């Protein structure tokens, strides 16, 4: 299986504040990852982790400040400099699509579903007819399709809008769809439906997904590969087995923060990682997680850990983890949780 998108040490810096008092915000700070064909690659992180900026960079909507992407074998810098033949450019543009979190803002409120779905064909000058549009609506489970063609977004429910957004992304039969928090704004029962739809479409059209989400419980259902981000950096990555044996203290804490609905949950202790995530402009020396981490020592404050291999397809950016950690995994994990629980 080939690598479709390769992200190499990508950075994105924004500047905020006034002309005289400009401060940089590192939204994405040196991220590398590979998206393999046919997989669902999840990027997990909380607000401020830079995952949405990364999504936009991977969708080639935003240009990285530094670093580059290799998309279907083409260097992204060429794409952004408009240094490509138009057929190459169109090929890339057709094959990467993006679905956004908020179905209320991702559809133009002044356009009918018909026009929204026809847009991709018009842009790429592909001939289409009404049946193509109906087929798209049918694929995303909006039945009967003719009832939807002439509706405006405000006449649809949140779930229906998200389906239209997915249909639009699907129109050009892309290889990769980037899903930026596709279920975050939806009600619980709708989340499940949209997830089922995504699974179905992936099989039907041989899609590759990049799923950006903070909803850990949901993405565990469909993920193949995982990249965990904290404060603009990758802290842990690998295949979905890393959810079973998370190594980075942040990943461990994150997975333990899930509020599982169960009859006993009222009496069970609730765990929350102590402290606050760093604000976008704050500067943390060394490992960004060190102010909240139970394992912090001198080296964590002085040096920034690099992402390195610790197991088969398992990388982690932590000074305290090495290959040996798997041998005493439970002891390692429990000691982290114990120290945290004492802090709370």
């Amino acid at each position: 299986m080939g690598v479709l998108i390769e992200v190499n040490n990508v950075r994105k810096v924004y500047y905020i504040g006034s002309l005289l008092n400009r401060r940089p915000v590192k939204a994405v700070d040196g991220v590398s990852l590979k998206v393999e064909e046919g997989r669902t690659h999840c990027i997990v992180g909380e607000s401020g982790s830079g995952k949405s900026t990364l999504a936009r960079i991977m969708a080639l909507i935003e240009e990285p400040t530094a670093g580059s992407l290799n998309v279907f074998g083409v260097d992204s810098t060429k794409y952004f400099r408009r240094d490509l033949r138009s057929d190459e450019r169109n090929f890339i543009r057709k094959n990467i699509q993006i679905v956004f979190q908020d179905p209320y803002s991702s559809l133009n409120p002044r356009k009918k579903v018909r026009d929204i779905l026809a847009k991709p064909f018009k842009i790429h000058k592909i001939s289409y007819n009404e049946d193509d549009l109906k087929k798209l609506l049918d694929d995303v489970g909006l039945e009967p399709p003719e009832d939807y063609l002439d509706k405006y977004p405000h006449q649809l429910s949140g779930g229906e809008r998200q389906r239209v957004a997915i249909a639009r992304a699907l129109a050009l039969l892309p290889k990769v769809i980037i899903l930026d928090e596709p279920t975050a704004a939806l009600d619980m029962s709708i989340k499940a439906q949209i997830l089922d739809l995504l699974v179905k479409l992936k099989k039907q059209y041989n899609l590759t997904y990049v799923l950006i989400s903070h909803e850990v419980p949901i993405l565990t259902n469909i993920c193949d590969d995982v990249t965990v981000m904290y404060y603009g950096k990758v802290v842990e990555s690998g295949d979905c087995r890393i959810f079973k044996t998370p190594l980075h203290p942040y990943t461990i804490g994150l997975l333990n923060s899930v509020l599982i609905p169960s009859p006993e949950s009222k009496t069970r202790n609730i765990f929350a990682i102590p402290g606050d995530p760093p604000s976008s402009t704050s500067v943390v020396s060394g490992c960004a997680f060190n102010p909240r981490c139970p394992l912090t020592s001198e080296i964590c404050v002085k040096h920034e850990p690099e992402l390195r291999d610790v197991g088969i397809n398992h990388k982690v950016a932590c000074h305290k983890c090495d290959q040996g950690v798997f041998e005493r995994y439970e002891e390692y994990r429990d000691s982290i949780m114990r120290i945290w629980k004492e802090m709370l």
Partner: protein
Amino acid sequence: MRWLNSLTICVALTLLLGIVGLLADLIAPYDPLNTRMFRGLQPPSNVNLMGTDQLGRDVFSWVIYGIRTSLLVGLSSATIAVAIAVLIGLLSGYRGGIIGNTLMRVADVFLSIPRFMLIIVTVVLLSPRISNIILVIAIFSWPEAARVVRSEVLSIKEREYVMAAKALGSRDLDIMVSEILPNVIPTILSLWTLIIADAILTESALGFLGLSDLNYPSLGVMLMMAKNAIFVGGWWVLLFPSIALVILILVFNSLSDKLIERLSPRLG
């Protein structure tokens, strides 16, 4: 009675005013420019519905033609101003760049000088012909509107449907015209009606100061006559043109409010 709401009333009044303006020749009983030496300052009667001014001109006919002039100046200058504003606002909001930013700085300069004074000076320099008045008002009205359009564009271009269009490969021009512009239209319409009201007021003020095209009766000119007429009891010279002016301004101002209310996209 769903149709009977404030927007419908506003639109109906606007249309009514429009008809009055269009059919001024048929409605007005006299030529408003006609002065009659010995029929000055006649009170309202069945001969002169709203009386006459010091020069014996029929106030009713003057008001009818005045409405026409007001509408002509208001509509044309607002349309020109909004067209400029949309072009510049869209360009500088979406693309920024040297041209866009320079144009916005020009707008800032315009905004920093007392507008009415500039208009007076320019009209005096160019001579007060109706086309000059329209152009001058238009040229001094676009900067404010351009600012509003620009800020709207700045917010809309960050919306996700614009991102989605980019991801599909839309060209910038296409994004501006088919994704952003339709969403700025309510604002544009409302700005347009606001500028109409403003331009009508400006035109009258110019008339009041004696800067009007002599072939186009201005409500302001009649108000200037009223300045002296009321001291000799000619209240009708003041009252009727004032009412006409107030109605014109009110109708266009409230039309602007109602349009924004009605046309904003329903998101809920």
